[in-house]
Every structure is written in structure tokens, then in C-alpha cells.
């Protein structure tokens, strides 16, 4: 087996959490509020959670049929060798593609909001080097690092929310369901696919100490995400109103920028940015890791370490080449990536699960 590390279920839970959270908290509320206005939080609280839960559970029930095997290993058993290889390849390409988008989101965020004079490539290169280093150290180290970071992130998230409570006017969330459920449902497609990213569990489930606990991990991860992202959206809406929330590039960043500690310490966003970078590191690391692992397993390598650096180089390249700028990236995130995500996070696992059930493969 390529990965010898074993995770506790709570480590997986927080890993899945950070697979979704960092970008969700920065980008989702604006995109959702553009469609659902002040009802964006309903879209995120209800529908997106449902999408997430469905995707997570499908992946869990698929994975649990093949104990100690991950997607790339059992897909051959399900649909035959040739088709299996095709699906594996497709997944690897998808993981790389989505990761390229994440990396670009990251570097364009830093370049827009913090250091406009610095070339984006610097951010891409540094985060890739760092995540390559982390991926080489294996899953257990990634989970450990993540755990430390999560505790700090949650603390800071709570502080940010508390510090801005004074500026919130919950009247801005009214009227509820002004235009009915339809726009809310429509708006939930983006946060919904964000939540389905917990499907990376397809590759991680066999590395749990007790794979059956994966269910608990994924369900709790989705619910915690639902809660925290909703808190985030509600605070954005309550501070800025639907108009300004939809109109900002990064509403949460604005929320942090707006915090003022006793008229003395303003503009703490740069400090929070460090934590956000840490979260992104985990997010990039997880997608990076599953891609590398899948690649190594597809070509039946002894060790995944030799592919780490080449894949990292490829990712940096892709993230630079695939998108021209922030707006182009946003376009990609809203439409094509959504289609891809629903396909790979939901449709294909569901299909595989059906095949497994019909053909009675696995346990």
C-alpha cells in the first residue's frame, strides 16, 4: 500500500472540512447573494448541505464496499479494466483542474487584496512548494498540521464574528424568501457543489483507522461547514446588506477589513490572511495529494513521492495558463466547474454505487 499512515475519524472530518471551507468562506457569499439576495443564507444552510450530504454519503457507501481500497483501485473491479482506467484518468484530470482553479483563486486573491505589485507566480510557486513538501510528508502529517490549523482558524473565525456583531443589522436579512424558493434553489447550485468537494473522501476513506467511522466524519464535516459558512454569509449580509455583499469581490475580507478593535487596532485582515493561506494550503494539499496518489496507483508505482514534484509543477503551470484573470476565473468557477464538480463528486460515484449494487461487487 502506498500510504501507510492511518487517520482517526476526527482527523478526516477536519481534513474534509478544510477541503471546502477556505475558499467557501471567501468566495461563496458573493456568488450566492448575486442570485438569492438576502436569502443567500437559506441556500447555503439548507440546499448546499443537502447536496453535500448526498455526495458524502454516496461516496461513503461506495467506498465502504471495498475496505482498504480507494477509488482508483476498486473502479477496475466495478466497470472492468479499460473503463476503470478511463474513469481513473478522468478523475486525475479533474483533481488537477479543480486544484489549478483553487491555486489561481488563491494567488489572484492575494494579488488583488494584499500585494498587487507582486507577480501572481510568486504566490503560486510558494504555495506549490509548500504543499509539495507537505504531501511528501504523507497523509498523517497533513492531518496533524490541519488539526492544529483548524483549532486556530475556528478561534479566529469566532473572534471575527463576535467582533463584528456590533455592526450587524439583522433587519438586512428581511424580507425572507422575497421571490420564493426558486432563486434560492438556483443560487444554491454554487455553494452546493462547493460542499460536494467532501467527495475527495473517495480517495481517503481506506486510510481511516476504522473506515466505518468515515460516515460520521463526512456527515459531521458537512454539517459543521453548513453551520460555519451560514454564519459567515449571515454576518456578511447583516453588515453589508445584500446589495453590497453581492457587489463585493470578497465580502468576508470586507467584513474583516471593517473590524475595528477599540478604535485602536484596525485592518487586521493581513493577520487573518495568514490563516486563510494556511487553510488554502490544506485545501490545495488535499486535492494535490489525491491526484498524486491516484496517479501513482494508476501506474502502479512503488511510491508516490517521485510524482509529487512533477505534478506540482504541472499544477502551477495549469493554474497560470488556464485562466487569464479574476473575472475569467470567476466565470469558470460558476459554470464549467460546477458541471464538472457535480459530475465527479455526485454523478459518477452514484453511477458506480448503482453498478456495485446491481452487480453485487464488494461487501
Amino acid at each position, binding site marked *: 500500500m502506498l500510504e501507510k499512515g492511518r487517520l*482517526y475519524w*476526527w*482527523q478526516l472530518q477536519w481534513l474534509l472540512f478544510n477541503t471546502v471551507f477556505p475558499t467557501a468562506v471567501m468566495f461563496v457569499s458573493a456568488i450566492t447573494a448575486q442570485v438569492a439576495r438576502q436569502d443567500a443564507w437559506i441556500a447555503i444552510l439548507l440546499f448546499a448541505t443537502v447536496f453535500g450530504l448526498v455526495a458524502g454519503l454516496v461516496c461513503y457507501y461506495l467506498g465502504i464496499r471495498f475496505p482498504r481500497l480507494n477509488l482508483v483501485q476498486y473502479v477496475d473491479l466495478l466497470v472492468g479494466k479499460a473503463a476503470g482506467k478511463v474513469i481513473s484518468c478522468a478523475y486525475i484530470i479533474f483533481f488537477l483542474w479543480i486544484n489549478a482553479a483553487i491555486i489561481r483563486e488563491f494567488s489572484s486573491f*492575494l494579488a488583488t487584496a*494584499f*500585494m498587487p505589485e*507582486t507577480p501572481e507566480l*510568486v*504566490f503560486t510557486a*510558494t504555495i506549490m512548494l*509548500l504543499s509539495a*513538501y*507537505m504531501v511528501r*510528508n*504523507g497523509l*498523517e*502529517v497533513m*492531518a*496533524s*498540521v*490541519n*488539526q*492544529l*490549523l483548524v*483549532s486556530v482558524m475556528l478561534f479566529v473565525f469566532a473572534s471575527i464574528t463576535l467582533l463584528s456583531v456590533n455592526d450587524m443589522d439583522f433587519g438586512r436579512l428581511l424580507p425572507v424568501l422575497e421571490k420564493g424558493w426558486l432563486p434560492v434553489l438556483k443560487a444554491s447550485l454554487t455553494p452546493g457543489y462547493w460542499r460536494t468537494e467532501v467527495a475527495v473522501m473517495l480517495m481517503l476513506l481506506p486510510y481511516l483507522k476504522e473506515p466505518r467511522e468515515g460516515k460520521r466524519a463526512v456527515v459531521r464535516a458537512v454539517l459543521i461547514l453548513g453551520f460555519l459558512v451560514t454564519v459567515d454569509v449571515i454576518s456578511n449580509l447583516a453588515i453589508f446588506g445584500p446589495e453590497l455583499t453581492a457587489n463585493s469581490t470578497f465580502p468576508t475580507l470586507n467584513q474583516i477589513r471593517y473590524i475595528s478593535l477599540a478604535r*485602536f*487596532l*484596525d*485592518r*487586521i485582515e*493581513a*493577520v487573518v*490572511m*495568514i*490563516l486563510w*493561506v*494556511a487553510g488554502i*494550503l490544506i485545501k490545495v494539499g488535499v486535492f494535490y495529494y489525491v491526484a498524486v496518489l491516484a496517479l501513482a496507483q494508476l501506474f502502479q508505482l512503488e511510491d508516490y513521492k517521485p510524482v509529487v514534484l512533477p505534478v506540482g509543477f504541472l499544477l502551477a503551470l495549469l493554474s497560470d495558463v488556464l485562466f487569464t484573470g479574476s473575472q475569467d476565473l470567476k466565470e469558470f468557477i460558476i459554470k464549467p466547474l460546477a458541471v464538472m464538480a457535480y459530475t465527479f463528486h455526485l454523478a459518477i460515484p452514484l453511477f458506480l454505487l448503482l453498478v456495485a449494487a446491481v452487480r453485487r461487487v464488494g461487501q
Partner: protein
Amino acid sequence: MRFLSRRRKEKTAAPGEKLSSRLEDNLVRLNQRLGSMADVVQREFYIAGDKPVKAFLFYIDGLVNRGLIDEIILKPLMEESLKRGRQFRSADEIYYHILSSTDAELVTTWAELLHRFLSGELCLLIDGNAAAIVVDARGEQVRGIEEPPTEPVIRGPRDGFTENIRINTMMIRRRVKSEHLKMESFILGELTRTEVIVAYLANVAQPDVVAEVKKRLQEIKIDGVLESGYIEEFFCERPFCPFPTVLSTERPDRVAAALLEGRVALLVDGTPFALVMPVTFFSLLQASEDYYNNACYASALRLIRLLALNFSILLPSLYIAITTFHQEMIPTSLVVSLISSREGVPFPAFVEALLMEITFEVLREGGVRLPRPVGHAVSIVGALVIGQAAVAAGLVSTAMIIVVALTAIANFVIPSFEAATVVRLLRFPLMALSASLGLYGVGLGLLTILIYAASLRSFGVPYLSPMAPAVAGELSDVMVRRPWYLMFFRPKLIAGKDVQRLEKGSSELDRG
């Protein structure tokens, strides 16, 4: 030649050349081996009796208690036979009937004899016997037990280890009077033949860790071990690892506490520094005093130490990052004074910080090396010349001086000297990163350190535990020192078998 690592009290003769039964032969051999050793005392005498037997006594001067020799060896040997009216001539007889010393043995090989002789025991060859008697009458001059200068406490025992391993083992044994406290001896160093003792509580320590320590000890083949630092580096998990994965301490109470938690201690002869393993990073931030002081106070101290750790690693780089990249974070009124104080300074903030930090490190090193009376001069030069004059000359800004001073003082708060050293070192790359990429650079640096530390293990225990991976019920231990009446368990990742340390119901206070 194969390195010999043998138990000291081994009775079976090691393979090697045997002693001859003729004293003359033995003396010839001895002269060959021990020529040009000015510090050897040799004494020929006869064991009294009707037919006096020739005997030869030799030992290293200064290591042996002379009065004791006269009392327990020469006097009985030269008089006892007369009193009893019986001739003693065999080594066995002398060993069993005459020698009034508890620590004596019969040795039959040259190798063993020489080893005993060199480690300061007294050797007695008797004509007609193919065995020598060695007597442990060591009486070397030792430093008295003093308060450890590197780990002073306000509350707690004042004794510290000395250079003598016997005294050190005594100090541990006196604290832990249990038959489970095992002390296994190893001889390390081909030339120095230093005694190393592995101590652990057999019913608590993880057997794998004990075995691993012994294995790693036996693998070390080196010419000499002069300090426990030699061994410490062999215990590193990674090449060039800056983090200490074993703890070194001068305090016997600290070693005893570690033993009780299930850790393994290593004492090395010739140094007051004992090693304790496995350790985690957060345990390096705890002082032995934490466990003697009031729990609330100790918990507050732990928080302050965490803060100081962050200060000491981050302050200069944060200063650089904030003043050169993220000026929006500085309160406006402070900006006015910062601009004013920086205006005449010719260097960029990074160079300024680097200069001052290096200056401080130089001063600090100078302070350690200089003879004590001159030390004050250094602090005056440091404080006045470098601090005040540099500011007055407009070379550095006052803000920078404050940052450097705070960093330096925060560094002293970290109880473990080794951990403090790492922090001092890591400050510099972080400063470079912050000068090139601002807070983002600092973040990158911190994350790199974090990943590296998370991948470390100390004898199988993850270095960042109990934070990462989190160990249920011990997370709080990083920041809070639980009161003793609630300290039910030993650290779970460290203690192997017997995790319970306090019985439920030992106090009224734990029910509620």
C-alpha cells in the same frame, strides 16, 4: 577492535587473556601496558604470615580514597593473618575472609582488570593466584550538590545533578523508591569508557521505547563521550534537525517526574545534564516548577510562555512585515511616531532588524564566554553604547530597540534552553521571509516549520502531540496545568502500560 559494551557487574569472565598465576609474569605484563603513567600508584607488600606471600597493589592516584586502602586492605592483610594465626594465600580466601569492603570482586582476565583499574578501582594481585581482587574504593574529588544554574526555580528542590553519576543515580533513587525503577548501565566510548545509565520505571514506561533507547545506545560506536550532548545528537530523528527531540535537564526532580510519566532517562557520567525521552514540543515549554506551584498560577504561566514563544519567534519579523508591507495595521498615531523615529535611519527595516538581532546575539555570546567580573562591562557596553548611542546617532530607530529587547527577554521565558535556541535560530529565516513577502512570507515560514515539526517523532511519539494529532483529554494540558487532585492519568502517548496515576476519590475536590 570490537567495542565492548558490557554490564558492569557481569560475573562471567569476558573472552580475553587470562591472568597468570605467577606474580612476576603479571607484573611484566602490567609494566608493558601501564608504562609512562605518572598517576599510577604501585605498592608491593607481603601478606603477613609464617611464609609471607608477595602481593602487588596498584591504582590511579586521586581516584581512590587512600585512607580507605590502608584501612580495608593493607591493615587487614598485613595483620589479620597474624591475629588469626593462619596463613591466607589464595585470592578467594582473602576475598571472603579478610577484605572488609562491600564492593570487591574477583577478576580473572586482563581486559576486565584494566578496565576496572582505569575506572578508578583498586587492584590487588597476589602471587600464586590467577585472579585479581578489585576493590571499589573510589574517593575522587567531586563537586558538591548545588542548585542547578541553568534551571533555577522559586519553589522546588534546590539540588542539581553533579558530574558524578553515582551521586546522580542516588538523587533519583532517593526520590523514587520503587523496585520498578530500573537502571541499566552501558559503557560508551572506546577510549573514554564512559558509564551511561538508562533509567525507567518498568511498570510504566513503554517497553518499545526502552528497547529502542538501548538499541540506539548500543549502535553508537564512538571513541569518546564527554557530555550527554554527544548522545543526544545520535537520538535525532532527522539529519540537521534543529528541534530537540530529547530533553536535557540538570534537575533530579524533573527526571523523577519524567520517570513517573513513563519517560526514559539517560544519565551520563561526567556531566550534570541528564537526557529525558520521549518528549514533545509542548512539554519543552513546561518547567518543573509548574507542578509545584498553584495550578491557576501555573496555568497562567503556561499561557504567558506560549505568548513569549510567539513573541520571541515572531516579533522582529512581524515588525518588519507590518512596517514595510502592512502599514494599514498600525494605529495612525503610532504611524506618526514611527515615521519620525525611522526618518534618519539609513537602513531598511530588515537590515536594521538583522543588525540589531545579530548584535544582540554577539552580546549574549560575549556575556556567556566572558569571565564573570568582566560580564558587567559587556552589559554596560551593550546597553549604553549599542542601545543608546546607536539611536542617538540615528543608526537605528527606538522602535527597533524595543522590538529586539522584547524578543530577547521573551526568549528567556522558554524553560528549555534547547527549545529557546531553536526559536532564536528560526527567527532569522522568518525575518528574511517577512522582508521579501510580508506577512505572507511569515505565514509561509511558520507553515514550513509547522509541517516539519509535525513530521517529527521523538521515539515514536508525534512531536506536536497532544495538539496534533490531538489526544482526547490532553489538549488542555498544553495551556492548563491541571490541579493534582484531577491529574488522574499519565500522558497517554508516553506512558505505555499503567496510565492511571491518581486513584479516583483521592480527594473531595474531584467530585463535582
